[in-house]
């Protein structure tokens, strides 16, 4: 994860040069293109391993193939949450906009992976458990986590003064992982009689090509996760820059309106 995209924004220039020059025209770079190609290639490999090479499971038959997507996406869902909480903590400490952008990227990508997790999970549950949904500990806590992420992003999306919003979303983001842990513990405790963890049911039977397929799944979705994170981070960063441009432009207009050039320049600091 590189934070080196810093567009050469020249905070003093009032005119946002359209297109080339001031801000990059897109969020891609050489590194992300290589990352994207790798992600595509490993996804193709996952399709090959998951759907063709690996054998059907003895108990779960072909539905086991969903696990090669489900388990990795659940894992990266939690990785995304950790990114958000870590970045929120760092923002509260350093107060630099990059951490805010990273927290946003983590939560959004985590939400995508939570939908993948819930979707593949319920498709898998139908043939295996005979129902799309059951009040299993993992399902329930993943559902609550999804709502937590939606709430977090809802607060982010509000049209607020950037400084005030950053403080609020940072506190909310900081609480994300503790909330997830408390919800997971309590729900697991509640459902402990119900059934053991889903993973441990698969683990003993996994070997050979199935294990390889799962590993390929981790690799492919990991690369997809990284690619999404980098791009989402850059989009968030550019959004922040755009906000700043708007402010600079408005300030410049105001200054141009004033007849005398004696306007104090300290308004341009914009320390929110």
């Amino acid at each position, binding site marked *: 994860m590189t934070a080196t995209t810093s567009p050469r924004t020249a905070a003093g220039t009032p005119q946002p040069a359209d297109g080339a020059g001031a801000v990059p025209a897109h969020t891609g770079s050489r590194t992300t293109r290589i990352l994207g190609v790798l992600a595509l290639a490993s996804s193709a490999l996952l399709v090959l391993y998951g759907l063709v090479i690996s054998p059907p499971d003895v108990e779960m038959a072909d539905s086991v193939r969903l696990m090669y997507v489900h388990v990795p996406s659940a894992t990266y869902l939690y990785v995304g949450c950790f990114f958000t909480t870590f970045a929120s903590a760092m923002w*509260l400490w350093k107060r630099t906009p990059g951490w805010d952008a990273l927290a946003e990227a983590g939560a959004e990508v985590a939400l995508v992976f939570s939908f993948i997790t819930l979707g593949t999970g319920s498709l898998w549950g139908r043939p295996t458990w005979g129902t799309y949904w059951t009040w299993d500990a993992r399902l329930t806590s993943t559902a*609550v986590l999804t*709502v*937590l992420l*939606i*709430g*977090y992003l*809802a*607060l982010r999306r*509000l049209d*607020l003064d950037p*400084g*005030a919003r*950053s*403080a*609020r979303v*940072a*506190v*909310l983001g*900081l*609480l994300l992982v*503790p*909330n997830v842990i*408390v*919800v997971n*513990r*309590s*729900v697991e*405790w*509640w459902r402990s009689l119900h059934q053991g963890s889903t993973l441990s049911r698969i683990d003993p039977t996994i070997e050979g090509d199935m294990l390889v397929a799962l590993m390929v799944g981790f690799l492919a979705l990991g690369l997809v996760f990284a690619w999404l994170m980098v791009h989402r981070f850059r989009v968030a960063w550019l959004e922040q820059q755009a906000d700043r441009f708007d402010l600079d432009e408005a300030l410049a207009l105001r200054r141009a309106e004033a007849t005398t050039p004696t306007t104090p320049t300290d308004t341009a600091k914009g320390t929110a």
Partner: protein
Amino acid sequence: MWRDAALVAGRDLRVEARSRVTLQQVGPFALLVLILFAFALDPARQTLERATPGLYWVTVLFSALLALARSAALDETDGVRDALRLSALEPAGVFAGKALAVAAELLALEVVLGIGVIILYGAEPAGIGLLVVTCVSATAAIATTGTLYGALVSGLRVRETLLPLLLLPVLAPVLLGATRAFEAALGGAPADGWPWCGLLAAFAVLYSVAGAAAYGTLLEGS
């Protein structure tokens, strides 16, 4: 800090006592929810009796949302927030005071609801010690968490809709723990309920610490 907390709690409760919103609106609303549950679940006593602990705590949560929105709204009018910032009161004290005031209101509400549940749902109180400890720890958990999240959304135009969305998933473990503890108490097996009380207490401590630490940031950043 505790002196500041007492000051803020005293102010909130005095405003509440004078406006009587909790007494005249939140309390009746809670009783209304109890009646609506009876409509929804068929007043054949068995269903209601079995579901009493869950219904009780869902009602408390819904009513708590109203009380918390009130508590947050108190600081939004007449520049109260700026006054608080300038008053040199410790942010942790302000947080504790607001949480204490909400907790006091909720405890009163829970007593009323308890009586309502006994009369309307035919619940037989048992395991009083466990019930009381559960109420106190769950109330502390709701009040601290709610005060913190109330500050997160205060001043926003969409706060009425956003607060439930943010707060209810976070309070899911409280609902779970309080309901299980009540079930254990009413079911005559209090030993099963005490671990849930532990969970509630741990939750309350976690959010008291988080709220006391974060309230300053939220107060200054709004």
